[in-house]
């Protein structure tokens, strides 16, 4: 089961601010949206670029996602999750949709050599390396190799779990359970309070 959070982490305060801002954005408050943009644009763009690799395509998708945040702010429900994870869910879905549409899949293959176990970390060039993300990386390092690679290929690589199974040469059922076990371990390691 989940462990209770002992003290609020740096993300939590920020997330509460974001939630209040999204409520104002839903009422059409453009000043609030500017602040939301400043909080979300780097995580949104970074995640999309991690998945798509191509900077100009990533910029296009990031714009769509941030506009989607504006458009659908009224649908954000704090009872169902944090503001950051709401936005990141939209961003990741859009990136994955783009990857899985055939045309861009072809472009992507031309642009990057396949590198299924691309390291923990082209992440190192992250501009906003903060405590929480260091912690995420430390927790990632605490997973078994198959758990870690499965989670990374699915999330950062945008691969479906059958594709992950093929890339890692393991059974479908194994990947399903490794992704879940790995994420649960990450959740407990990072003391995520949901």
């Amino acid at each position, binding site marked *: 089961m989940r462990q209770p959070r002992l003290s609020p982490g740096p993300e939590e305060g920020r997330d509460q601010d974001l939630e209040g801002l999204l409520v104002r954005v839903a009422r059409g408050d453009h000043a609030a949206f500017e602040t939301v943009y400043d909080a979300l644009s780097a995580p949104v763009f970074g995640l999309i670029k991690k998945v798509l690799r191509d900077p100009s395509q990533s910029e296009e998708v990031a714009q769509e996602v*941030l506009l989607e945040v*504006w458009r659908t702010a009224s649908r954000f429900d704090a009872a169902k999750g944090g503001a950051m994870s709401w936005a990141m869910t939209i961003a990741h879905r859009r990136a994955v949709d783009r990857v899985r549409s055939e045309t861009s899949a072809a472009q992507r293959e031309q642009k990057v050599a396949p590198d299924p176990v691309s390291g923990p970390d082209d992440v190192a060039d992250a501009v906003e390396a903060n405590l929480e993300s260091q912690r995420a990386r430390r927790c990632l390092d605490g997973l078994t190799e198959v758990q870690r690679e499965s989670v990374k290929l*699915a999330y950062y690589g945008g691969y479906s779990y059958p594709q992950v199974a093929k890339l890692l040469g393991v059974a479908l059922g194994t990947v399903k359970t490794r992704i879940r076990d790995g994420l649960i371990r990450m959740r407990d390691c990072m003391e995520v309070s949901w």
Partner: protein
Amino acid sequence: MRFQRHDLHTLTGSYALDALEGEELGEFERHLDRCPSCLSEVRGLRETAARLAMATAERPPAAMREQVLALAERTRQLPPLTGGTPARRAVSRRARRVWIPRFSVAVAALSVAAAVVFGVNQNSAQDQLNSIRSQLTSAEAHNHALAAVLAASDAHLVSSGTSHGGAVTAIVSPHEGKLVVVTSGLPALPASKVYELWLLGPSVARPSGLLGGAQNGHTDPVVAAGLAAGYKLGVTVEPAGGTLRPTTAPIVDMSL
């Protein structure tokens, strides 16, 4: 393919990472509606994934800020969901159905047109248009933009089959610079996809609305504005919520 309950439950992780596709995705989403513990686990795992996202943060090009803020200035926001509408996904099909009763008269009349008009000659198309107009009194009370196009003296009907099956019908008023788009028999899409309309000019593809709330093979009428001479109407399949530029080939491309 059917899955055992315990098998479905192990998909929470893959679902939280958007690693499910196709039939399995649909099956798991239906399962989530009935499995509160799965839903709760998915939420926790999504929060976890968001922390992984934070580790990749990278500042976008500075010019993007002005572009996004300017786009927001001219983009209408979705209204909040009200009442007992199921709201698990931000932009679900079920959410859009809320609007249907208001347009039911228009939908009924226009869908007749969409079904019948495709492939018939201009005279009967004109008759159809007149018949639609006569049925639209009550729709008029609800939707002025839609009624204005239908009532325009230069309104004409254009219809075409799509490469995915079904037909798209547009009632076009060049004078108003607007058109009303209805469809018949378009294949249903998964919740993650939507049909998007485009006005295709010589050098632009302008996003012109989403075909939401497909019911009984028909979609809600959509009013698209900004029509100019020489523009064509295109429809593509896009991620739910729509995109700013077409990312797939049009399933229909019709002169107006």
